[in-house]
């Protein structure tokens, strides 16, 4: 490795294996330091973006205060649709939160070269997405001030949560996932904090980076344990990523609601999560590589490789949709059949077709290498996929509940302005954290970039043996 020098740009190229994606335009360790550190530092545009994000977040925050005062009736719930936008948005953000750890852990284990440039941003995205998602179960419950009852802790009531409930599994899965994602992100950041500490001139910032770097000094001993710990974290995170969205899918699959009660849900949800997570990575990374002038770090080869993942997961998700329909027909269970008919051709056809279009049809464009290497198209596609995946959760949650066993209780659902405030607020909250992140911490793993940059050698012929 290290000798494959692919040109940086150009539209039509021979297909590059994902593992071989390289950074030919990055030549020295110093260049990495310089270029990544130069992305830090405030700009007016950034401040403006932050202000918009904080504003949106405040919309959500005030909606929450309002809702807590009046009760959940202010949201659009319409029994029997007892779960609505909050759960949809929860699953949406948890899904987004899957790309980061997938990239940093699973692709690490698979030695996928294209991961290096994007994994830090994706990991941060994961943390913030899970932080966003984690709010929604609390927002969604009727008495949010009693949320801690779901956590097992010794108490004077002698009461414990019900470990048979998928919601308690959720608590465990989401809190574990958040903890591990934060840990993973932080561990990866330690050597980079050391870099920042050593390059920083402002004494206050230097001090802060110093504390954050935990006294890291790049010694061989540190690297040895670091590498091992990182490997095991990756090894643990791999099943964790798969389990988290499986557990989220259990919220649905464990119930007997037609449209929810399906054994395909765990793989279906995991694939959907990766699909939506990669889309969100595009949404973030494509503008970022442009604005931060990092096109030679996130090359078209990188985008091409991620597009292949998106294409694959889109096929998985599409296959899952088809299997759901097939099983409903094949099962011969009338409530199931009537429900799926209603979902696709009845009351909810518009939502179902938005989902099918965005998640199944549009990503098929990625069979074309031209489009895979077109950042503009990928960015627009990512928006469609985000919308499509939100609607996928809508289609799972709402139509199923509205058309259950008891025909007398069939209903409908329209979100209210409060629901929408929370949706807006969630994006505000997410981007607020992300924007704060990109200006304080390196958006790419400096230390890992250096791993693929060819180091300086005195005797050039001597390189590349390992």
């Amino acid at each position, binding site marked *: 490795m290290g000798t494959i020098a692919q040109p940086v740009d150009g539209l039509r190229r021979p297909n590059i294996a994902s593992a071989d994606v390289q950074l030919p335009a990055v030549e020295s*360790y*110093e260049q990495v*330091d310089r270029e990544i550190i130069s992305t830090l530092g405030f700009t007016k545009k950034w401040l403006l973006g932050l202000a918009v994000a904080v504003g949106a977040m405040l919309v959500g925050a005030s909606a929450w205060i309002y809702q807590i005062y009046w009760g959940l009736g202010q949201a659009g719930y319409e029994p029997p649709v007892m779960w609505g936008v909050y759960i949809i948005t929860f699953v949406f953000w948890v899904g987004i939160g899957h790309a980061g750890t997938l990239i940093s852990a699973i692709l690490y284990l698979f030695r996928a070269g294209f991961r290096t440039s994007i994994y830090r941003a994706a990991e941060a995205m994961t943390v913030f997405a899970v932080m966003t998602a984690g709010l929604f179960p609390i927002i969604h419950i009727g008495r949010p001030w009693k949320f801690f009852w779901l956590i*097992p802790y010794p108490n004077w009531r*002698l009461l*414990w949560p*019900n*470990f*048979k409930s998928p919601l308690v*599994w959720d608590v*465990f*899965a989401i809190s*574990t996932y958040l*903890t*591990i994602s934060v*840990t*993973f992100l932080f*561990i990866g950041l330690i*050597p980079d904090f*050391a*870099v920042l*500490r*050593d*390059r920083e001139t402002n004494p206050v910032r230097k001090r802060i980076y110093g504390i954050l770097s*935990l*006294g890291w*000094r*790049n*010694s*061989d*001993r*540190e*690297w*040895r*344990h*670091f*590498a*091992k*710990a990182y490997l*095991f*974290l990756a090894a*643990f*995170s791999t*099943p*964790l990523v798969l*389990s988290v969205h499986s557990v989220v899918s*259990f919220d649905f699959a464990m119930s007997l609601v037609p449209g929810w009660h399906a054994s395909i849900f765990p793989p279906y949800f995991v694939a959907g999560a990766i699909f939506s997570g990669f889309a969100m990575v595009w949404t973030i990374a494509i503008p970022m590589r442009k604005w931060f002038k990092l096109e030679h770090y996130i090359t078209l080869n990188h985008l091409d490789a991620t597009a292949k993942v998106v294409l694959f997961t889109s096929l998985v998700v599409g296959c899952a949709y088809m299997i759901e329909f097939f099983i409903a027909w094949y099962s011969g269970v009338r409530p199931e059949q009537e429900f799926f008919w209603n979902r696709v051709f009845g009351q909810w056809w518009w939502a179902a077709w938005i989902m099918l279009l965005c998640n199944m049809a549009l990503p098929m464009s990625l069979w074309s290498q031209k489009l895979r290497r077109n950042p503009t198209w990928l960015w627009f596609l990512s928006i469609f996929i985000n919308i499509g995946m939100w609607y996928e959760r809508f289609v799972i949650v709402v139509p199923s509940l509205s058309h259950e066993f008891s025909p007398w209780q069939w209903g409908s659902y329209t979100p209210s302005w409060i629901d929408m405030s929370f949706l807006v607020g969630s994006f505000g909250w997410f981007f607020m954290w992300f924007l704060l992140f990109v200006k304080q911490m390196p958006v790419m793993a400096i*230390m*890992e970039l*250096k*791993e693929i940059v060819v*180091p*300086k*050698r*005195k*005797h050039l012929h*001597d*390189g590349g*043996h*390992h």
Partner: protein
Amino acid sequence: MQGVLGAFHELDTTVDAIEELKKARLGHVTVFSPTIRHEIDDAIDGPNSVVRRFTLVGGLLGVTFGYWISIWTGDYWPLVTGGKAIASWIPYTIIGFEVMVLVGCLSTVAGMFINARIPRLTSTVGYDPRFSGGHFGIFVACGADKAPQVEALLQKHGAEEVRRED
């Protein structure tokens, strides 16, 4: 800690210096590098990390705790829900798994911290900010008696700078 520090800019010269220093047995060698390089690992040929044991113990503790807390609390105040068993081990596997991952990961991190001796709160001896940038460093812990020998060796291999630390 006394010793001699050498800063290198090239990987191959660093590796050569490490290999020779190890042979010379002039004192404990600490290598600083901006990133993980297998060449350096091979040259140092250090012991395998014990972090894996932390991981194993943490994971086992976690899975045990996960099963235990769910079974014990169910049994402590048995309330039947949905006609299901009080100790339903199948769903409790999820709890067991999640807690295994949680405790396993955290103990892995703890293992890394303990073994890598971080966090360090005091300033470091024998470290130079360049080592997080583009330079490799070699610090040899040795008394003043051996220092000139080390300095010579480092300079021979093309160190950009060699200095003594007290």
